[in-house]
Protein backbone atom coordinates (compact mmCIF):
# COMPACT_ATOMS: atom_id res chain seq x y z
CA UNK A 1 0.00 0.00 0.00
CA UNK A 2 1.50 3.38 -1.04
CA UNK A 3 1.06 6.78 0.63
CA UNK A 4 0.16 5.43 4.07
CA UNK A 5 -0.66 8.69 5.84
CA UNK A 6 -0.51 9.51 9.53
CA UNK A 7 -4.32 9.71 9.75
CA UNK A 8 -4.34 5.95 8.94
CA UNK A 9 -1.48 5.18 11.31
CA UNK A 10 -3.32 6.93 14.14
CA UNK A 11 -6.62 8.73 13.47
CA UNK A 12 -6.98 12.24 14.96
CA UNK A 13 -9.75 11.21 17.32
CA UNK A 14 -7.18 9.14 19.26
CA UNK A 15 -4.78 12.04 19.81
CA UNK A 16 -6.40 13.25 22.99
CA UNK A 17 -4.02 11.69 25.48
CA UNK A 18 -1.51 13.84 27.33
CA UNK A 19 1.09 11.09 27.73
CA UNK A 20 3.13 9.17 25.16
CA UNK A 21 1.87 5.71 26.11
CA UNK A 22 -0.89 3.44 24.94
CA UNK A 23 -1.22 4.61 21.32
CA UNK A 24 -0.36 1.12 20.02
CA UNK A 25 -3.85 -0.23 20.52
CA UNK A 26 -5.20 2.32 18.03
CA UNK A 27 -2.45 1.81 15.46
CA UNK A 28 -4.13 1.61 12.01
CA UNK A 29 -7.42 1.70 13.92
CA UNK A 30 -9.81 2.04 10.99
CA UNK A 31 -8.01 -0.56 8.90
CA UNK A 32 -7.74 -3.00 11.79
CA UNK A 33 -11.21 -2.80 13.29
CA UNK A 34 -14.80 -2.61 12.12
CA UNK A 35 -17.04 0.18 13.41
CA UNK A 36 -18.34 -2.18 16.14
CA UNK A 37 -14.79 -2.76 17.40
CA UNK A 38 -14.41 -6.29 16.04
CA UNK A 39 -11.12 -6.96 14.21
CA UNK A 40 -11.16 -7.04 10.40
CA UNK A 41 -10.02 -10.55 9.45
CA UNK A 42 -8.35 -9.58 6.19
CA UNK A 43 -6.06 -6.91 7.67
CA UNK A 44 -2.47 -8.12 7.81
CA UNK A 45 -1.68 -6.97 11.38
CA UNK A 46 -4.65 -8.99 12.65
CA UNK A 47 -3.07 -12.17 11.35
CA UNK A 48 -0.65 -13.60 13.95
CA UNK A 49 1.40 -15.33 11.25
CA UNK A 50 2.68 -11.87 10.25
CA UNK A 51 3.74 -10.92 13.77
CA UNK A 52 7.16 -9.27 14.00
CA UNK A 53 9.28 -6.28 14.98
CA UNK A 54 9.80 -4.93 11.47
CA UNK A 55 6.97 -3.09 9.72
CA UNK A 56 7.25 -3.18 5.92
CA UNK A 57 5.36 -0.60 3.82
CA UNK A 58 5.32 0.82 0.30
CA UNK A 59 6.33 4.27 -0.95
CA UNK A 60 5.72 7.57 0.89
CA UNK A 61 5.09 6.07 4.31
CA UNK A 62 4.05 8.51 7.05
CA UNK A 63 2.89 11.37 4.85
CA UNK A 64 0.54 14.03 6.18
CA UNK A 65 0.35 15.36 9.70
CA UNK A 66 3.37 16.02 11.95
CA UNK A 67 1.79 14.06 14.79
CA UNK A 68 4.54 12.18 16.61
CA UNK A 69 1.74 9.96 17.93
CA UNK A 70 2.22 8.00 14.66
CA UNK A 71 5.74 7.02 15.67
CA UNK A 72 4.65 6.41 19.26
CA UNK A 73 1.83 4.11 18.10
CA UNK A 74 4.13 2.01 15.91
CA UNK A 75 6.76 1.76 18.65
CA UNK A 76 4.11 1.01 21.27
CA UNK A 77 2.74 -1.80 19.09
CA UNK A 78 6.12 -3.51 19.34
CA UNK A 79 7.95 -2.43 16.18
CA UNK A 80 11.58 -1.27 16.20
CA UNK A 81 12.11 -0.81 12.47
CA UNK A 82 10.00 0.46 9.57
CA UNK A 83 11.10 -0.41 6.06
CA UNK A 84 9.90 1.48 2.99
CA UNK A 85 11.23 2.75 -0.33
CA UNK A 86 10.42 6.32 0.67
CA UNK A 87 9.50 8.10 3.92
CA UNK A 88 7.82 11.44 4.50
CA UNK A 89 10.31 13.87 6.10
CA UNK A 90 8.59 14.73 9.36
CA UNK A 91 7.69 11.10 10.06
CA UNK A 92 11.31 10.10 9.55
CA UNK A 93 12.52 12.66 12.13
CA UNK A 94 9.78 11.67 14.56
CA UNK A 95 10.70 8.01 14.21
CA UNK A 96 14.39 8.65 14.83
CA UNK A 97 13.57 10.76 17.87
CA UNK A 98 11.78 7.73 19.31
CA UNK A 99 14.43 5.13 18.53
CA UNK A 100 12.25 3.68 15.78
CA UNK A 101 14.60 3.07 12.86
CA UNK A 102 13.31 4.05 9.38
CA UNK A 103 15.14 1.98 6.76
CA UNK A 104 14.92 3.21 3.18
CA UNK A 105 15.49 0.54 0.53
CA UNK A 106 15.26 0.52 -3.27
CA UNK A 107 11.96 -0.32 -4.98
CA UNK A 108 13.50 -3.57 -6.20
CA UNK A 109 14.67 -4.63 -2.76
CA UNK A 110 11.30 -3.73 -1.27
CA UNK A 111 9.63 -5.98 -3.85
CA UNK A 112 11.99 -8.81 -2.81
CA UNK A 113 11.08 -8.30 0.83
CA UNK A 114 7.37 -8.46 0.05
CA UNK A 115 7.92 -11.59 -2.06
CA UNK A 116 9.88 -13.26 0.76
CA UNK A 117 7.15 -12.45 3.28
CA UNK A 118 4.46 -13.71 0.92
CA UNK A 119 6.31 -16.98 0.46
CA UNK A 120 6.94 -17.41 4.18
CA UNK A 121 5.23 -15.06 6.63
CA UNK A 122 7.66 -16.23 9.33
CA UNK A 123 10.69 -15.23 7.26
CA UNK A 124 13.36 -13.45 9.22
CA UNK A 125 14.89 -10.19 8.02
CA UNK A 126 18.02 -8.85 9.71
CA UNK A 127 18.65 -5.13 10.17
CA UNK A 128 22.13 -4.15 11.35
CA UNK A 129 22.36 -0.49 12.29
CA UNK A 130 26.11 -0.45 12.93
CA UNK A 131 26.82 -1.94 9.50
CA UNK A 132 23.81 -0.13 7.94
CA UNK A 133 22.63 -3.29 6.21
CA UNK A 134 19.34 -5.10 5.74
CA UNK A 135 19.57 -8.78 4.88
CA UNK A 136 17.08 -11.35 3.57
CA UNK A 137 17.27 -15.07 4.48
CA UNK A 138 18.48 -15.86 0.94
CA UNK A 139 21.50 -13.66 1.56
CA UNK A 140 20.19 -10.73 -0.51
CA UNK A 141 21.43 -7.57 1.10
CA UNK A 142 21.22 -3.82 0.72
CA UNK A 143 22.89 -1.00 2.62
CA UNK A 144 20.85 1.95 3.88
CA UNK A 145 21.67 5.59 4.62
CA UNK A 146 21.54 7.25 8.01
CA UNK A 147 23.48 10.33 9.03
CA UNK A 148 26.40 9.68 11.34
CA UNK A 149 25.13 11.91 14.10
CA UNK A 150 21.77 10.10 14.28
CA UNK A 151 23.42 6.70 14.07
CA UNK A 152 25.64 7.53 17.04
CA UNK A 153 22.58 8.77 18.95
CA UNK A 154 20.64 5.57 18.27
CA UNK A 155 23.53 3.24 19.06
CA UNK A 156 24.28 5.04 22.33
CA UNK A 157 20.78 5.96 23.39
CA UNK A 158 21.38 9.75 23.29
CA UNK A 159 18.75 12.15 22.11
CA UNK A 160 18.92 15.59 20.49
CA UNK A 161 17.82 17.37 23.64
CA UNK A 162 20.82 16.04 25.57
CA UNK A 163 23.07 17.44 22.87
CA UNK A 164 21.26 20.79 22.55
CA UNK A 165 21.27 21.31 26.31
CA UNK A 166 25.02 20.71 26.32
CA UNK A 167 25.57 23.64 23.92
CA UNK A 168 23.28 26.17 25.62
CA UNK A 169 26.31 28.43 26.05
CA UNK A 170 26.77 28.59 22.28
CA UNK A 171 23.08 29.33 21.86
CA UNK A 172 23.18 32.21 24.35
CA UNK A 173 26.23 33.56 22.60
CA UNK A 174 24.39 33.38 19.25
CA UNK A 175 21.51 35.35 20.77
CA UNK A 176 23.91 38.03 22.02
CA UNK A 177 25.65 38.44 18.67
CA UNK A 178 22.32 38.62 16.85
CA UNK A 179 20.70 40.89 19.44
CA UNK A 180 17.78 38.56 19.99
CA UNK A 181 15.76 39.82 22.92
Amino acid sequence: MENVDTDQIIPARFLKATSRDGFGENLFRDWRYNADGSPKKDFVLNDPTYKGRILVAAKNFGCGSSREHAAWAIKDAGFDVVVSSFFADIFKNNALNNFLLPVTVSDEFLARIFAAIKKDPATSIAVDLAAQTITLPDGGQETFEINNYKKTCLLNGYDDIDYLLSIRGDIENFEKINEIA
Partner: protein
Amino acid sequence: MAKTLFEKIWDRHVVKTIEGGPSVLYIDRHFIHEVTSPQAFKGLEKRGVEVFRPKQIIATADHNVPTIDQHLPIKDELSRIQVQSLIENCKKHNVELYGLGHPYQGIVHVIGPELGITQPGMTMVCGDSHTSTHGAFGAIAFGIGTSEVEMVMATQCLLQSKPKLMRINVEGKLNRGVISKDIILYIIAQISASGATGYFVEYAGSAIRELSMEARMTICNMSIEMGARGGMIAPDDTTFVYLKGRPFAPQGADWDNRLAQWRELYSDEGARFDKEINIDAATIEPMITYGTNPGMGISVNGHVPALSEINDKELPSYIKSLDYMGLHQGDPIKGKKVDYVFIGSCTNSRIEDLRLVASFVKGRKKAEHVEVWIVPGSKQVEQQAIKEGIDKVFEAAGFHLRQPGCSACLGMNEDKIPAGKYCISTSNRNFEGRQGPNARTLLASPLTAAVAAITGEVSDVREYLETNNS
Protein backbone atom coordinates in the same frame (compact mmCIF):
# COMPACT_ATOMS: atom_id res chain seq x y z
CA MET B 1 27.66 34.33 -4.22
CA ALA B 2 24.06 34.33 -5.37
CA LYS B 3 21.79 33.04 -2.63
CA THR B 4 18.21 31.84 -2.54
CA LEU B 5 15.65 33.41 -0.22
CA PHE B 6 15.80 30.21 1.84
CA GLU B 7 19.59 30.30 2.16
CA LYS B 8 19.62 33.94 3.24
CA ILE B 9 17.35 33.15 6.17
CA TRP B 10 18.83 29.73 6.98
CA ASP B 11 22.43 30.98 7.06
CA ARG B 12 21.52 33.71 9.53
CA HIS B 13 20.01 31.18 11.92
CA VAL B 14 22.69 28.49 12.06
CA VAL B 15 24.23 28.45 15.54
CA LYS B 16 26.69 25.73 14.54
CA THR B 17 26.98 22.72 12.27
CA ILE B 18 27.87 19.22 13.46
CA GLU B 19 30.51 17.71 11.19
CA GLY B 20 28.91 15.22 8.83
CA GLY B 21 25.57 15.84 10.53
CA PRO B 22 22.78 18.36 10.92
CA SER B 23 22.96 22.06 11.81
CA VAL B 24 21.78 23.65 15.03
CA LEU B 25 19.10 26.03 13.80
CA TYR B 26 17.91 28.91 15.98
CA ILE B 27 14.12 29.32 16.09
CA ASP B 28 12.64 32.83 16.39
CA ARG B 29 9.02 31.96 17.07
CA HIS B 30 7.37 28.82 18.36
CA PHE B 31 3.62 28.26 18.28
CA ILE B 32 2.08 25.58 20.45
CA HIS B 33 -1.43 24.10 20.79
CA GLU B 34 -3.21 21.63 23.04
CA VAL B 35 -2.65 18.40 21.09
CA THR B 36 1.10 18.19 20.43
CA SER B 37 2.44 20.08 23.47
CA PRO B 38 1.42 18.20 26.66
CA GLN B 39 4.00 15.43 26.23
CA ALA B 40 6.69 18.04 25.53
CA PHE B 41 5.94 19.90 28.78
CA LYS B 42 5.97 16.57 30.60
CA GLY B 43 9.32 15.70 29.02
CA LEU B 44 10.84 18.98 30.19
CA GLU B 45 9.59 18.47 33.69
CA LYS B 46 10.97 14.95 33.74
CA ARG B 47 14.39 16.32 32.80
CA GLY B 48 14.07 19.14 35.31
CA VAL B 49 14.57 21.74 32.57
CA GLU B 50 12.83 25.14 32.42
CA VAL B 51 11.37 26.63 29.24
CA PHE B 52 14.38 28.53 27.83
CA ARG B 53 12.70 31.51 26.09
CA PRO B 54 9.01 31.59 27.07
CA LYS B 55 8.51 35.00 25.40
CA GLN B 56 9.19 33.45 22.00
CA ILE B 57 6.36 30.94 22.41
CA ILE B 58 2.71 31.68 21.62
CA ALA B 59 -0.05 29.25 22.56
CA THR B 60 -3.65 28.81 21.45
CA ALA B 61 -6.34 26.15 21.73
CA ASP B 62 -7.65 25.17 18.31
CA HIS B 63 -7.45 21.48 17.38
CA ASN B 64 -10.17 19.95 19.50
CA VAL B 65 -12.23 22.91 20.71
CA PRO B 66 -15.98 22.86 20.04
CA THR B 67 -17.28 25.36 17.46
CA ILE B 68 -20.58 26.03 19.17
CA ASP B 69 -21.17 27.25 22.73
CA GLN B 70 -17.51 27.92 23.41
CA HIS B 71 -18.47 29.74 26.61
CA LEU B 72 -19.65 26.45 28.15
CA PRO B 73 -17.28 23.81 29.59
CA ILE B 74 -16.06 21.42 26.88
CA LYS B 75 -18.32 18.35 26.95
CA ASP B 76 -15.82 15.78 25.72
CA GLU B 77 -13.76 14.83 28.74
CA LEU B 78 -10.48 14.07 26.97
CA SER B 79 -10.61 17.31 24.97
CA ARG B 80 -11.37 19.23 28.13
CA ILE B 81 -8.36 17.68 29.88
CA GLN B 82 -6.09 18.54 26.95
CA VAL B 83 -7.24 22.16 26.84
CA GLN B 84 -6.98 22.42 30.61
CA SER B 85 -3.44 20.97 30.53
CA LEU B 86 -2.46 23.69 28.05
CA ILE B 87 -3.84 26.38 30.36
CA GLU B 88 -1.94 24.96 33.33
CA ASN B 89 1.30 24.40 31.43
CA CYS B 90 1.28 27.92 29.98
CA LYS B 91 0.64 29.42 33.38
CA LYS B 92 3.37 27.40 35.02
CA HIS B 93 5.96 28.20 32.34
CA ASN B 94 4.98 31.84 31.65
CA VAL B 95 3.85 31.24 28.08
CA GLU B 96 1.30 33.65 26.57
CA LEU B 97 -1.94 31.77 25.83
CA TYR B 98 -4.75 32.94 23.60
CA GLY B 99 -7.20 30.34 24.79
CA LEU B 100 -10.96 29.97 24.50
CA GLY B 101 -12.70 33.24 25.30
CA HIS B 102 -9.67 35.37 24.40
CA PRO B 103 -10.23 37.89 21.56
CA TYR B 104 -7.09 36.57 19.80
CA GLN B 105 -8.01 32.86 19.98
CA GLY B 106 -8.10 30.92 16.74
CA ILE B 107 -6.32 28.44 14.49
CA VAL B 108 -2.62 28.82 15.16
CA HIS B 109 -1.79 29.49 11.48
CA VAL B 110 -4.49 32.13 11.21
CA ILE B 111 -3.67 34.08 14.36
CA GLY B 112 0.14 34.24 13.88
CA PRO B 113 -0.16 36.28 10.68
CA GLU B 114 -3.18 38.35 11.69
CA LEU B 115 -1.47 39.47 14.91
CA GLY B 116 1.74 40.36 13.08
CA ILE B 117 3.71 37.73 15.02
CA THR B 118 4.71 36.12 11.72
CA GLN B 119 7.33 38.30 10.01
CA PRO B 120 9.70 38.07 7.06
CA GLY B 121 13.11 36.54 7.66
CA MET B 122 12.07 34.57 10.72
CA THR B 123 12.46 30.89 11.54
CA MET B 124 9.18 29.55 12.92
CA VAL B 125 7.99 26.14 14.03
CA CYS B 126 4.89 24.49 15.48
CA GLY B 127 3.89 20.93 16.24
CA ASP B 128 1.65 20.98 13.20
CA SER B 129 2.53 20.22 9.60
CA HIS B 130 0.64 23.25 8.23
CA THR B 131 3.13 25.61 9.85
CA SER B 132 4.35 26.09 6.28
CA THR B 133 1.51 28.67 6.04
CA HIS B 134 3.75 31.32 7.63
CA GLY B 135 6.21 30.97 4.74
CA ALA B 136 3.91 33.29 2.79
CA PHE B 137 5.70 36.16 4.58
CA GLY B 138 9.16 35.07 3.48
CA ALA B 139 9.89 33.09 6.63
CA ILE B 140 11.31 29.59 7.06
CA ALA B 141 8.37 27.90 8.77
CA PHE B 142 7.81 24.18 9.16
CA GLY B 143 5.99 21.55 11.20
CA ILE B 144 7.72 19.47 13.84
CA GLY B 145 6.97 16.50 16.09
CA THR B 146 6.51 16.61 19.83
CA SER B 147 10.13 15.63 20.68
CA GLU B 148 11.18 18.63 18.61
CA VAL B 149 8.62 20.83 20.39
CA GLU B 150 10.41 19.81 23.57
CA MET B 151 13.82 20.66 22.05
CA VAL B 152 12.69 24.14 21.08
CA MET B 153 11.16 24.68 24.51
CA ALA B 154 14.42 23.59 26.13
CA THR B 155 16.91 25.39 23.89
CA GLN B 156 15.08 27.49 21.25
CA CYS B 157 16.97 25.35 18.71
CA LEU B 158 16.49 22.31 16.50
CA LEU B 159 18.85 19.95 14.76
CA GLN B 160 18.08 20.16 11.07
CA SER B 161 19.71 19.04 7.87
CA LYS B 162 19.49 21.57 5.09
CA PRO B 163 16.77 20.49 2.67
CA LYS B 164 17.01 20.57 -1.11
CA LEU B 165 15.45 23.62 -2.74
CA MET B 166 12.75 23.75 -5.37
CA ARG B 167 11.26 26.78 -7.09
CA ILE B 168 7.81 26.70 -8.62
CA ASN B 169 7.13 29.58 -10.99
CA VAL B 170 3.52 30.35 -11.82
CA GLU B 171 3.44 32.88 -14.62
CA GLY B 172 0.57 34.62 -16.36
CA LYS B 173 -2.99 35.52 -15.58
CA LEU B 174 -5.47 33.33 -13.76
CA ASN B 175 -8.80 32.46 -15.33
CA ARG B 176 -11.98 33.88 -13.92
CA GLY B 177 -13.24 31.83 -10.99
CA VAL B 178 -9.77 30.40 -10.36
CA ILE B 179 -8.18 31.35 -7.02
CA SER B 180 -5.10 30.46 -5.01
CA LYS B 181 -6.53 27.17 -3.71
CA ASP B 182 -6.91 26.03 -7.31
CA ILE B 183 -3.26 26.91 -8.00
CA ILE B 184 -1.96 24.77 -5.17
CA LEU B 185 -4.35 21.86 -5.87
CA TYR B 186 -3.21 22.01 -9.49
CA ILE B 187 0.48 21.99 -8.50
CA ILE B 188 0.01 19.00 -6.18
CA ALA B 189 -1.95 17.12 -8.85
CA GLN B 190 0.94 17.78 -11.25
CA ILE B 191 3.79 16.65 -9.01
CA SER B 192 1.94 14.18 -6.70
CA ALA B 193 1.54 13.90 -2.92
CA SER B 194 5.21 13.00 -2.56
CA GLY B 195 6.66 15.07 -5.41
CA ALA B 196 8.38 17.61 -3.16
CA THR B 197 9.53 15.32 -0.32
CA GLY B 198 12.98 16.39 0.83
CA TYR B 199 12.53 19.89 -0.59
CA PHE B 200 11.70 23.34 0.66
CA VAL B 201 9.69 25.15 -2.00
CA GLU B 202 9.76 28.78 -3.06
CA TYR B 203 6.71 29.93 -5.03
CA ALA B 204 7.45 32.68 -7.52
CA GLY B 205 6.21 34.19 -10.76
CA SER B 206 3.76 36.91 -11.75
CA ALA B 207 0.63 34.97 -10.76
CA ILE B 208 2.00 34.53 -7.21
CA ARG B 209 3.07 38.16 -6.86
CA GLU B 210 -0.43 39.27 -7.86
CA LEU B 211 -1.97 37.38 -4.92
CA SER B 212 -3.04 38.92 -1.60
CA MET B 213 -1.31 37.80 1.60
CA GLU B 214 -4.22 35.58 2.56
CA ALA B 215 -4.21 33.92 -0.87
CA ARG B 216 -0.44 33.36 -0.55
CA MET B 217 -0.97 31.72 2.83
CA THR B 218 -3.35 29.18 1.23
CA ILE B 219 -0.61 28.20 -1.22
CA CYS B 220 2.20 27.87 1.34
CA ASN B 221 -0.19 26.07 3.71
CA MET B 222 -0.53 23.06 1.41
CA SER B 223 3.19 22.66 0.63
CA ILE B 224 3.28 19.69 3.00
CA GLU B 225 0.60 17.96 0.88
CA MET B 226 3.21 17.34 -1.82
CA GLY B 227 5.70 16.25 0.83
CA ALA B 228 7.62 19.55 1.05
CA ARG B 229 9.05 20.51 4.41
CA GLY B 230 7.77 24.03 3.84
CA GLY B 231 6.89 26.65 1.27
CA MET B 232 7.77 30.31 1.03
CA ILE B 233 7.20 33.46 -1.00
CA ALA B 234 9.56 36.45 -1.13
CA PRO B 235 8.13 39.39 0.83
CA ASP B 236 7.16 42.50 -1.12
CA ASP B 237 4.97 45.60 -0.70
CA THR B 238 1.88 43.40 -0.42
CA THR B 239 3.52 41.76 2.60
CA PHE B 240 4.65 45.01 4.21
CA VAL B 241 1.29 46.74 3.77
CA TYR B 242 -0.44 43.73 5.33
CA LEU B 243 1.90 43.71 8.34
CA LYS B 244 2.07 47.40 9.16
CA GLY B 245 0.09 48.36 12.24
CA ARG B 246 -0.71 44.81 13.38
CA PRO B 247 -0.47 44.30 17.16
CA PHE B 248 2.94 42.59 17.19
CA ALA B 249 4.47 44.19 14.10
CA PRO B 250 7.50 46.41 14.72
CA GLN B 251 6.74 50.11 15.14
CA GLY B 252 8.47 53.47 14.54
CA ALA B 253 12.21 53.36 13.92
CA ASP B 254 12.21 49.61 14.52
CA TRP B 255 9.76 49.20 11.62
CA ASP B 256 12.03 51.21 9.30
CA ASN B 257 15.08 49.15 10.24
CA ARG B 258 13.28 45.88 9.78
CA LEU B 259 11.75 46.99 6.51
CA ALA B 260 15.19 47.75 5.10
CA GLN B 261 16.29 44.20 6.04
CA TRP B 262 13.12 42.63 4.69
CA ARG B 263 13.63 44.27 1.31
CA GLU B 264 16.80 42.18 0.92
CA LEU B 265 14.84 38.94 1.22
CA TYR B 266 14.54 37.50 -2.27
CA SER B 267 16.35 34.87 -4.30
CA ASP B 268 19.29 36.51 -6.07
CA GLU B 269 19.59 36.39 -9.82
CA GLY B 270 21.45 33.17 -10.62
CA ALA B 271 20.76 31.52 -7.24
CA ARG B 272 20.77 27.75 -7.61
CA PHE B 273 17.71 25.55 -7.05
CA ASP B 274 17.91 21.75 -7.08
CA LYS B 275 14.70 21.65 -9.07
CA GLU B 276 12.61 24.21 -10.91
CA ILE B 277 9.04 23.83 -12.20
CA ASN B 278 7.20 26.25 -14.47
CA ILE B 279 3.45 26.52 -14.60
CA ASP B 280 1.27 28.57 -16.93
CA ALA B 281 -1.48 30.16 -14.81
CA ALA B 282 -3.86 30.20 -17.77
CA THR B 283 -4.01 26.39 -17.87
CA ILE B 284 -5.44 26.17 -14.34
CA GLU B 285 -9.17 25.55 -13.96
CA PRO B 286 -11.24 25.33 -10.77
CA MET B 287 -9.91 22.18 -9.10
CA ILE B 288 -11.37 19.40 -6.97
CA THR B 289 -10.01 16.14 -5.54
CA TYR B 290 -11.70 12.79 -6.11
CA GLY B 291 -9.40 10.46 -4.16
CA THR B 292 -7.80 9.95 -0.78
CA ASN B 293 -4.64 11.99 -1.07
CA PRO B 294 -4.34 15.64 -2.10
CA GLY B 295 -2.44 14.72 -5.25
CA MET B 296 -5.61 13.13 -6.65
CA GLY B 297 -7.02 16.36 -8.05
CA ILE B 298 -8.71 17.22 -11.36
CA SER B 299 -10.51 20.14 -12.98
CA VAL B 300 -14.18 20.32 -11.96
CA ASN B 301 -14.82 19.58 -15.63
CA GLY B 302 -12.56 16.54 -15.58
CA HIS B 303 -13.24 12.87 -15.03
CA VAL B 304 -12.03 10.37 -12.47
CA PRO B 305 -9.04 8.77 -14.23
CA ALA B 306 -9.68 5.40 -15.86
CA LEU B 307 -7.72 2.40 -14.57
CA SER B 308 -5.83 2.35 -17.86
CA GLU B 309 -4.42 5.82 -17.06
CA ILE B 310 -2.86 4.61 -13.79
CA ASN B 311 0.51 2.87 -13.68
CA ASP B 312 0.59 -0.72 -12.43
CA LYS B 313 2.40 -0.06 -9.17
CA GLU B 314 -0.14 2.51 -8.05
CA LEU B 315 -3.14 0.44 -9.11
CA PRO B 316 -3.88 -1.28 -5.76
CA SER B 317 -3.86 2.04 -3.87
CA TYR B 318 -5.91 3.65 -6.62
CA ILE B 319 -8.61 0.98 -6.62
CA LYS B 320 -8.80 1.08 -2.81
CA SER B 321 -9.13 4.84 -2.97
CA LEU B 322 -12.01 4.84 -5.48
CA ASP B 323 -13.72 2.10 -3.51
CA TYR B 324 -13.50 4.22 -0.35
CA MET B 325 -14.81 7.27 -2.19
CA GLY B 326 -17.62 5.34 -3.88
CA LEU B 327 -16.57 6.73 -7.26
CA HIS B 328 -16.12 4.96 -10.58
CA GLN B 329 -13.22 5.20 -12.97
CA GLY B 330 -13.90 7.43 -15.94
CA ASP B 331 -16.90 9.21 -14.39
CA PRO B 332 -17.20 13.00 -14.66
CA ILE B 333 -16.92 14.69 -11.26
CA LYS B 334 -19.30 17.51 -12.15
CA GLY B 335 -22.82 16.77 -11.01
CA LYS B 336 -21.69 14.52 -8.13
CA LYS B 337 -24.14 15.07 -5.30
CA VAL B 338 -22.66 16.41 -2.05
CA ASP B 339 -24.12 16.18 1.46
CA TYR B 340 -21.93 18.57 3.43
CA VAL B 341 -20.02 21.76 2.71
CA PHE B 342 -17.22 22.73 5.08
CA ILE B 343 -15.64 26.15 4.70
CA GLY B 344 -12.86 26.53 7.23
CA SER B 345 -9.40 25.26 8.35
CA CYS B 346 -5.97 26.89 8.33
CA THR B 347 -6.11 26.70 4.53
CA ASN B 348 -9.25 28.75 3.86
CA SER B 349 -10.95 30.33 6.88
CA ARG B 350 -9.71 33.89 6.70
CA ILE B 351 -11.81 36.99 6.22
CA GLU B 352 -11.14 37.15 2.45
CA ASP B 353 -12.41 33.57 2.13
CA LEU B 354 -15.59 34.43 4.01
CA ARG B 355 -16.07 37.63 1.98
CA LEU B 356 -15.66 35.71 -1.26
CA VAL B 357 -18.20 33.08 -0.22
CA ALA B 358 -20.62 35.77 1.00
CA SER B 359 -20.33 37.75 -2.23
CA PHE B 360 -21.25 34.61 -4.17
CA VAL B 361 -24.12 33.38 -2.01
CA LYS B 362 -25.72 36.78 -1.37
CA GLY B 363 -29.32 36.48 -2.50
CA ARG B 364 -28.99 32.72 -3.04
CA LYS B 365 -30.14 29.79 -0.91
CA LYS B 366 -28.44 26.52 -0.13
CA ALA B 367 -29.70 23.31 -1.68
CA GLU B 368 -32.16 21.66 0.65
CA HIS B 369 -30.25 18.41 1.24
CA VAL B 370 -26.92 20.10 2.01
CA GLU B 371 -25.59 20.97 5.45
CA VAL B 372 -23.21 23.95 5.36
CA TRP B 373 -20.68 24.72 8.10
CA ILE B 374 -18.66 27.91 8.01
CA VAL B 375 -15.94 27.90 10.63
CA PRO B 376 -13.95 31.15 10.90
CA GLY B 377 -10.22 30.81 11.49
CA SER B 378 -10.13 33.08 14.50
CA LYS B 379 -12.12 35.20 16.90
CA GLN B 380 -10.96 38.26 14.96
CA VAL B 381 -12.20 36.81 11.66
CA GLU B 382 -15.53 35.96 13.29
CA GLN B 383 -15.93 39.48 14.72
CA GLN B 384 -14.98 41.10 11.41
CA ALA B 385 -17.51 38.92 9.57
CA ILE B 386 -20.22 40.00 11.99
CA LYS B 387 -19.18 43.64 11.65
CA GLU B 388 -19.50 43.42 7.87
CA GLY B 389 -22.87 41.67 8.05
CA ILE B 390 -21.47 38.52 6.44
CA ASP B 391 -23.10 36.44 9.17
CA LYS B 392 -26.51 37.72 8.01
CA VAL B 393 -25.77 36.75 4.41
CA PHE B 394 -24.87 33.25 5.56
CA GLU B 395 -27.94 33.00 7.73
CA ALA B 396 -30.20 34.02 4.85
CA ALA B 397 -28.57 31.37 2.67
CA GLY B 398 -29.13 28.70 5.32
CA PHE B 399 -25.46 28.36 6.36
CA HIS B 400 -24.26 27.99 9.93
CA LEU B 401 -21.52 30.39 11.02
CA ARG B 402 -19.80 28.59 13.86
CA GLN B 403 -17.01 29.57 16.27
CA PRO B 404 -13.27 29.37 15.52
CA GLY B 405 -11.24 26.15 15.54
CA CYS B 406 -9.80 23.40 13.34
CA SER B 407 -13.21 21.70 13.34
CA ALA B 408 -14.15 19.31 10.54
CA CYS B 409 -10.74 19.56 8.87
CA LEU B 410 -9.63 16.72 11.12
CA GLY B 411 -12.74 15.93 13.14
CA MET B 412 -11.08 15.91 16.55
CA ASN B 413 -14.04 17.70 18.07
CA GLU B 414 -17.74 16.92 17.44
CA ASP B 415 -17.66 18.36 13.89
CA LYS B 416 -17.44 15.06 12.04
CA ILE B 417 -18.83 14.16 8.63
CA PRO B 418 -20.97 11.00 8.95
CA ALA B 419 -19.83 7.73 7.35
CA GLY B 420 -20.40 7.49 3.63
CA LYS B 421 -21.36 11.14 3.21
CA TYR B 422 -19.69 13.43 0.70
CA CYS B 423 -18.22 16.68 1.97
CA ILE B 424 -16.84 19.38 -0.27
CA SER B 425 -14.25 20.94 1.96
CA THR B 426 -11.90 23.93 1.78
CA SER B 427 -9.44 22.15 4.08
CA ASN B 428 -6.19 20.47 3.10
CA ARG B 429 -6.47 16.68 3.44
CA ASN B 430 -8.79 14.11 1.93
CA PHE B 431 -7.23 11.11 3.66
CA GLU B 432 -9.48 8.20 4.58
CA GLY B 433 -11.34 8.98 7.78
CA ARG B 434 -9.83 12.45 8.08
CA GLN B 435 -13.20 14.17 8.54
CA GLY B 436 -14.70 11.25 10.43
CA PRO B 437 -14.67 7.44 10.02
CA ASN B 438 -15.60 6.62 6.40
CA ALA B 439 -16.35 10.26 5.55
CA ARG B 440 -15.66 11.15 1.91
CA THR B 441 -13.83 14.42 1.32
CA LEU B 442 -13.62 16.46 -1.88
CA LEU B 443 -11.07 19.27 -1.50
CA ALA B 444 -11.81 22.51 -3.34
CA SER B 445 -11.61 26.30 -3.18
CA PRO B 446 -14.07 28.37 -1.12
CA LEU B 447 -15.70 29.46 -4.36
CA THR B 448 -16.18 25.90 -5.62
CA ALA B 449 -17.46 24.93 -2.16
CA ALA B 450 -19.89 27.88 -2.20
CA VAL B 451 -21.38 26.95 -5.55
CA ALA B 452 -21.79 23.34 -4.42
CA ALA B 453 -23.65 24.57 -1.34
CA ILE B 454 -26.15 26.28 -3.62
CA THR B 455 -26.52 23.61 -6.32
CA GLY B 456 -26.06 20.61 -4.01
CA GLU B 457 -23.55 19.05 -6.37
CA VAL B 458 -20.04 19.56 -7.75
CA SER B 459 -20.35 22.49 -10.15
CA ASP B 460 -18.20 24.84 -12.20
CA VAL B 461 -18.50 28.18 -10.45
CA ARG B 462 -17.83 30.02 -13.71
CA GLU B 463 -21.26 29.03 -15.00
CA TYR B 464 -22.79 30.97 -12.13
CA LEU B 465 -20.66 34.11 -12.13
CA GLU B 466 -21.98 37.31 -13.65
CA THR B 467 -19.99 38.23 -16.72
CA ASN B 468 -18.12 41.20 -15.30
CA ASN B 469 -17.58 39.73 -11.92
CA SER B 470 -14.54 37.64 -11.11
